[in-house]
């Protein structure tokens, strides 16, 4: 593989991780959704590039799903949801922006230190892709933990899923990538429809998950 191919793949994978950091940095709901859409776009490009370079044509399907569903339909649905239910446009954080960024950087260091020694025998590109993907997964997890709102949790979950698809795409010749991607999309779709149909806002007064915390005990 020529260096140019290699570099382009790196830039695309790196952009997914970078956009993961921007998700942590964002304080506004609509901004968050836009950044998520861009992250999905980055994932789509990375998958398409992998498909092109390695001639794995089924990855074009993965790229197409990421582009249409995650960069298109889901951000649109989330925007409608926020307008429809009049959800707060600013994000309530459990851990401040600064500390979350520091925690995010620590997680990236951790995953690089974890993945690179372990995969010493694998192809260079696979190792680095995997380190970037694991970082994205962990940042998505961090976002789910440190952001209090149900919508931001869903976005955190989808960022995590972007990282997973990136990993699956990066491992050469992995079967069933497309099927797994679809299984995830169905799950995310159900979560979002759950918010729609169950009117979680109506029932919980707010999408703030602190209200869920009060349910930790028993029914009286």
């Amino acid at each position, binding site marked *: 593989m020529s260096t140019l191919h290699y570099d382009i793949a790196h830039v695309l994978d790196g952009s997914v991780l970078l956009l993961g950091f921007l998700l942590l940095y964002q304080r506004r709901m609509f901004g968050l959704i836009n950044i998520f859409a861009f992250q999905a776009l980055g994932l789509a490009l990375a998958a398409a590039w992998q498909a092109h370079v390695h001639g794995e044509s089924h990855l074009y399907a993965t790229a197409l799903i990421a582009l249409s569903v995650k960069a298109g339909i889901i951000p649109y649905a989330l925007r409608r949801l926020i307008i429809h239910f009049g959800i707060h446009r600013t994000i309530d954080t459990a851990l401040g922006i600064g500390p979350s960024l520091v925690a995010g950087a620590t997680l990236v260091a951790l995953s690089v230190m*974890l*993945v690179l*020694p*372990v*995969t010493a*025998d*694998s192809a260079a590109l*696979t190792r680095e892709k*995997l380190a970037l993907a*694991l970082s994205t*997964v962990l940042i998505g*997890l961090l976002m*789910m933990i440190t952001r209090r709102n*149900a919508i931001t*949790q869903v976005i955190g*979950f989808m960022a*995590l*899923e972007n990282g*997973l698809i990136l*990993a*699956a795409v990066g*491992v*050469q*010749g*992995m*079967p*069933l990538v497309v*099927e*797994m991607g679809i*299984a*995830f999309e*169905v*799950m995310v779709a*159900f*979560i979002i429809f*759950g918010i729609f149909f*169950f009117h*979680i806002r109506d*029932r*919980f007064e707010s999408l703030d998950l602190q209200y*869920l915390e009060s*349910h930790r005990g*028993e*029914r*009286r």
Partner: protein
Amino acid sequence: MTVILFILGLPAVAAILLPLAPSHKVGAKTNIGVCMATFCVSLALFFVDRPTDLLFFIDDFNIYLVVLTTFVGLTTSFFSAGYIAHEIEHKHLDVRNLRFYHAMFQAFMFTMLLGLVANNLGFLWVAVEGATLATALMISLSRTQASIKAAWKYFILCGVGIALALFGTILVYLAAQPVMGAGLHAMAWSELMRWGPQFDPVLLDLAFVFLLIGYGTKAGLAPLHAWLPDAHGEGPTPVSAVLSGLLLNVALYALLRFKMLLVANGKTLAPGPLMIGMGLMSLVLASVMLYRRRDIKRMFAYSSIEHIGLVTFAFGLGGAMANFAGLLHMMLHSLTKSAIFFIVGHVAHVKGTQNLADLRGLTVSHPPLGWTLVLAMVAIAGLPPLGLFTSEFLMVTTTVSQAPLLAAPLVLGLLVGFGALALRLQGLAFGTPRGLVHTGGGGSLVPIYAHLALVLVAGVYLPAPLVRWFEAVSRLLG
């Protein structure tokens, strides 16, 4: 192979067609019919050649879980029909919401069976993910605030678990791919086990950590169990029965398959101590939590965590005897716990509450139901002559001989859990009756008797073919 296609095809087709059922009664009857057919077909597995291809396979280990799953599915479908009819009669459920209930039940059965017979890591993962979806929809069936909250919590926690399990699956493939080459066969259990010794052990270690956290969340192992009491407590009772009786088993089955792969490799970290640690933590934590429950379904949900912890501990310990005890306990716990949830469903119907404080003196006010509950609680507490005594006794004796230090927390956990159940049984069964006493209702107790009879028989006499078979699986597990 035809048999497998039937086992998977019946629930799959039913799940697609059931939303079209004209009324919930037709839906319930179809549900029973399909479960009955699936159970009969699964029995045929004993008489045909074991099929294996790159997508599906049957071996000694999964065949007994497939039959157990279809059996519990069948009895639950009977119980569910009566339960749903009663709930509609008393306006706890909206008929409009029920349209998808039976379809989701069949979809759940499909995913459980797919997970068990899949000869492919990817299929297994998709199956467990699909089971999460189907059960989350069933948990929120009553559309009360509490049930929707429970479903949401279940969705989010298990979603993360599932995601981490996928990362582990990718790492296993990454370990297999340099040795076996790319392609579908590098994700097939039957092939992976053959090539296992050549895989990179460090990659497998890393993969197992992710898989343990991922599938461990679904199996309800502490400290990842937070979703389990809510889902059991707020969901409809038939769903609690299949969650405890089937889903936890399948999640544990997934974990055990990966453990077998690590054992086959031989150069990895021993997976045993990790599983022993989580198992003991679940056992002790859940036993202590049993004391402060106010809700009967939540109490038995904690008891499920306790027993899954025990089983995980036994498999973590490894060796022929411990694996034997683990397999036996897994099977008997499924039967006993789903029977208990059936009883709890009946009790909640006749008393109109699941609050432990209002459920007292059941043997006085409702003798048949009350005494059945006593029998089932004696079984789940691990007293002789019922089957769970045999498996727990085996576990304790094996632990004392193999790892005496671990016996202390094991016995402590068992005793603490036993104490809690004995305390509760006292009030539930023998106190002065209190609260509402509906007459009638209830429905058939036959599924409960079927389960408890099997548990009793297993405690008194294990048939020789069954023992040989368990021994074969124990060796397989390493």
